[in-house]
């Protein structure tokens, strides 16, 4: 798509064109699917630029008063803000995002990749040996108690408990919600969602009438935000979501 198209679409979206020029753009929107896709891309780019604070002065006014006039665009803005927020989290917790690594990996000669894989395997094996050795009765375990996020939407501190992970392992005690009456559970499992979208399932090490406890080793928790979904498993195999707990590892 020509650069001129992008420019004219931007001018249209910011309400800077004459009626005749607008009509030309609109007619193409009705007849040219490629142009329509380019239009959608430019819409998203304007939303992203607004979220990044790129617009200033008169242009900012045009964007706010013209471009964001419809509720659909406002919905796009919320999505872009969420994406932006996620980007900040990713950049804040990982100075070397995955992308930087992957091209390097792909570009490297096969023999180097083989050597790197062997080294990585050795490091992982050594790390496992180290962790297993350290998981003796005298292992250093930190404890954190979490409460289900239900009902505390406005209280961020309550929802995402920050934990500084300097012990070998983290014992997480999930307090069962006092207000609800969950059906009797034979067992539980905990689904741990990381901010990057990864999900792992963990079995509790102990449980009683008021809490469920799990232990995660330091290697299993990189810095970032986590949501822990507690699922009760009844004696008949039926499952029931008890609650979600939020944790920030620093």
């Amino acid at each position, binding site marked *: 798509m020509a650069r001129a198209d992008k420019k004219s679409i931007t001018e249209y979206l910011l309400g800077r064109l004459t009626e005749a020029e607008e009509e030309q753009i609109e007619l193409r929107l009705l*007849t040219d699917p490629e142009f329509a896709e380019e239009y959608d891309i430019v819409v998203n780019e304007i939303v992203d630029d607004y979220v990044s604070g790129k617009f200033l002065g008169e242009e900012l006014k045009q964007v706010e008063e013209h471009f964001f006039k419809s509720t659909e665009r406002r919905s796009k*803005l919320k*999505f872009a*803000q969420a994406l932006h927020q996620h980007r900040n989290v990713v950049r804040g917790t990982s100075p070397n995002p995955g992308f930087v690594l992957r091209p390097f990996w792909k570009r490297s000669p096969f023999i180097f990749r083989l050597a790197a894989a062997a080294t990585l395997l050795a490091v992982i094996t050594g790390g496992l040996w180290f962790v297993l050795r350290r998981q003796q009765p005298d292992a250093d375990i930190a404890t954190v108690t979490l409460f289900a996020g*239900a009902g505390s939407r406005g209280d961020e501190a309550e929802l995402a408990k920050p934990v500084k992970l300097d012990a070998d392992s983290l014992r997480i005690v999930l307090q069962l919600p006092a207000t609800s009456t969950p059906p009797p559970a034979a067992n539980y499992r905990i689904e741990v969602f990381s901010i990057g979208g990864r999900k792992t399932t963990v079995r509790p090490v102990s449980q009683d009438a008021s809490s469920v406890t799990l232990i995660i080793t330091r290697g299993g928790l990189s810095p970032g935000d986590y949501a822990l979904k507690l699922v009760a498993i009844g004696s008949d195999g039926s499952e029931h979501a008890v609650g979600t707990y939020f944790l920030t590892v620093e």
Partner: protein
Amino acid sequence: MEITQEAFDDLLTWLNPDRELAGLKYENIRAGLVRVFVAKGFTDAEDLADETILRVSKRLPEIRTTYVGEPASYFHGVARNLIREAFRRKEVATDLAPIASIQITKRSDEYECLMRCLQFLPTVKRELILDYHVYEGHNKIEVHRVMAEELGISEGALRGRAHRIRLELEECVLKCVQSLRKTKPLAEDIVNSEALTPGMYHGPSR
């Protein structure tokens, strides 16, 4: 009032004698109309697009033998009239909250839904969309260049691919937020929601 099947068939025939091509043309026109109404600030863009189509179909018996030119132009003309009418009646929303007041936090529905929806994306798509958006400014340009090189496609093709994944993700987040607000208003519920299942968000996006 809705368009009858007979009127709709006539409309498609007018667009193109080939039913399949006519259907494609119809979809392009309708999607274009929605874009135009959104650009003009209407909150009910879909309804207005349908109203435009209804008006055209009503006039079709009179115009089909005399009208010369691209049918899309006729739809566009009707849409412009509708816009003028609506502006005269001041139907465009003016009581929306100031845009600067919209702020998403890590505990908002949108953010939680984004986290959820990212899990439904295949790994390749998830990595592409996150990598594509991870940097700003000059770094962004450089990253996009390297990404395109790695994928063996042009930067323009990468831009299009990232856009289509974004649409898919945005659609998922939108449905997730709607479902969340309709059924369970608390933050934890999105993770508990059984309404969200893999494969639910692969429909076409506008």
